């Protein structure tokens, strides 16, 4: 059951790809070989994160964006688009209801699009532990664009900024006052801001509040609903891992994902962000930072596993009961156990 030919995946065998993703998701030993075969071919796809609060219309937006990317006229060959849609796992049952496909019926029948739903399986940053590995497989399989839709995110689920090249943060009208717009967290990671449901009367107000927030961060600028973005020199603005992000000022797009208004301009802006990253060398910087972090995370996991295999269970329980009895602090206990 576990024999999957990586070459078949490269040649577009969707069944092989799908089964490979399952092995990766389950951390099955058979997934190592597949990842090893595909990894050298990865690093080419444009990784686009779509995040925002529950109910802002992320899935509907992803549906429209995928269609727009497939249909844009200025391209000889339509790019292959993969979608990873993450929804939360129940902390009680371990089960999950993955409902993002409901909004993506339009994409059925297009063999150039591959959609995979993913449960977060206990990870808290808005993605699942194996989302990054999914990206490697899909990238190595030859997808040109990978749209990653996060769990409905609140304020601190910012893992997507570490994974994606371009982060699109989706807002909807009526979700809080202007103080929400100046809080730290999710808005800070946006390369592009979207006010969805722009047919609602409060949409302009929401866009204005976001614009005010951007002006504070970047100094000046104008509301753009037509995909214009401002290029400004303000070196010193820091990105999530303290990379200098010199010239990009996030634009704000008013869109209505249900009927497609504003989508083409948004898709064009996402493409422009890619070009910007490549021309400034930030693409490479992001890749290197991501791979370094992936390596760090793997080392942590493996060290933990090694330690768990070595530790004497009785001793661990004894130290733990000291902690429960408030005789040792957790830090002292951890130091004693390592």
């Amino acid at each position, binding site marked *: 059951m576990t024999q999957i030919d990586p070459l078949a995946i490269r040649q577009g065998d*969707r069944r092989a790809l799908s089964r490979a993703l399952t092995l990766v998701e389950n951390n099955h030993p058979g997934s190592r070989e597949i990842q090893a075969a595909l990894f050298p071919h990865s690093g080419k796809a444009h990784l686009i994160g779509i995040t925002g609060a529950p109910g802002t219309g992320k899935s509907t937006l992803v549906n429209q964006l995928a269609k727009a990317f497939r249909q844009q006229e200025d391209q000889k060959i339509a790019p292959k688009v993969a979608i990873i849609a993450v929804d939360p796992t129940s902390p*009680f049952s371990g089960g999950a209801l993955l409902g993002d496909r409901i909004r993506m019926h339009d994409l059925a*029948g297009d063999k150039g699009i591959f959609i995979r739903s993913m449960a977060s399986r206990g990870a808290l940053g808005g993605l699942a532990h194996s989302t990054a590995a999914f990206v490697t497989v899909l990238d190595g399989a030859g997808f040109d664009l990978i749209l990653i839709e996060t769990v409905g995110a609140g304020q601190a689920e910012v893992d997507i900024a570490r994974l994606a090249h371009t982060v699109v943060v989706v807002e909807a009208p009526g979700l809080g006052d202007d103080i929400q717009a100046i809080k730290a967290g999710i808005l800070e990671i946006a390369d592009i801001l979207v006010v969805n449901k722009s047919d609602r009367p409060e949409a302009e107000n929401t866009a204005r509040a976001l614009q005010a927030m951007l002006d504070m961060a970047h100094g000046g600028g104008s509301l753009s609903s037509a995909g214009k973005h401002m290029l400004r020199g303000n070196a010193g603005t820091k990105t999530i891992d303290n990379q200098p992000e010199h010239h990009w000022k996030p634009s704000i797009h008013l869109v209505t994902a249900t009927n497609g208004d504003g989508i083409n301009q948004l898709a064009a802006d996402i493409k422009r962000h890619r070009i910007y990253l490549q021309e400034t060398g930030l693409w490479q910087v992001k890749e290197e930072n991501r791979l370094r972090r992936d390596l760090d995370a793997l080392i942590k996991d493996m060290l933990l596993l090694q330690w768990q295999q070595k530790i004497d269970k009785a001793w661990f329980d004894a130290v733990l009961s000291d902690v429960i009895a408030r005789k040792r602090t957790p830090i002292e206990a951890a130091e004693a156990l390592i």
Partner: protein
Amino acid sequence: MTEKKIRVLIAKPGLDGHDRGAKVIARALRDAGMEVIYTGLRQTPEMIAEAALQEDVDVVGLSILSGAHTVLVPAVVKKLHENQLSDVKVFVGGIIPKEDIPELLEQGVYAVYGPGTDTQKVAEDIFQAFNPAEA
């Protein structure tokens, strides 16, 4: 460390617009610890088989209230075969007259459930049908 979850696709083929039952079963299977992909109303057999392929599910649950089950179910089963998904277990729920059940089972459906079925029973049947050791 491998952790295998049972993945289930719940779909409504055909034209009837009532998905209460489908949602109830989706929720129940979620609570039983499964990963349930819910695809919504008015799915063609092609769409269901394609979603099953992309999601690599172990089980497809079809909810049909329209009376078109004798047409829709074989069509879905055929498309699953075409996608090399013959090992996927197909469950059918909804308004299915008793006399139609043997025909559906003969076509490779694993089980058929009528109105009032205990959702717990469906979850148990799926656990039984599915042996994690094989995966």
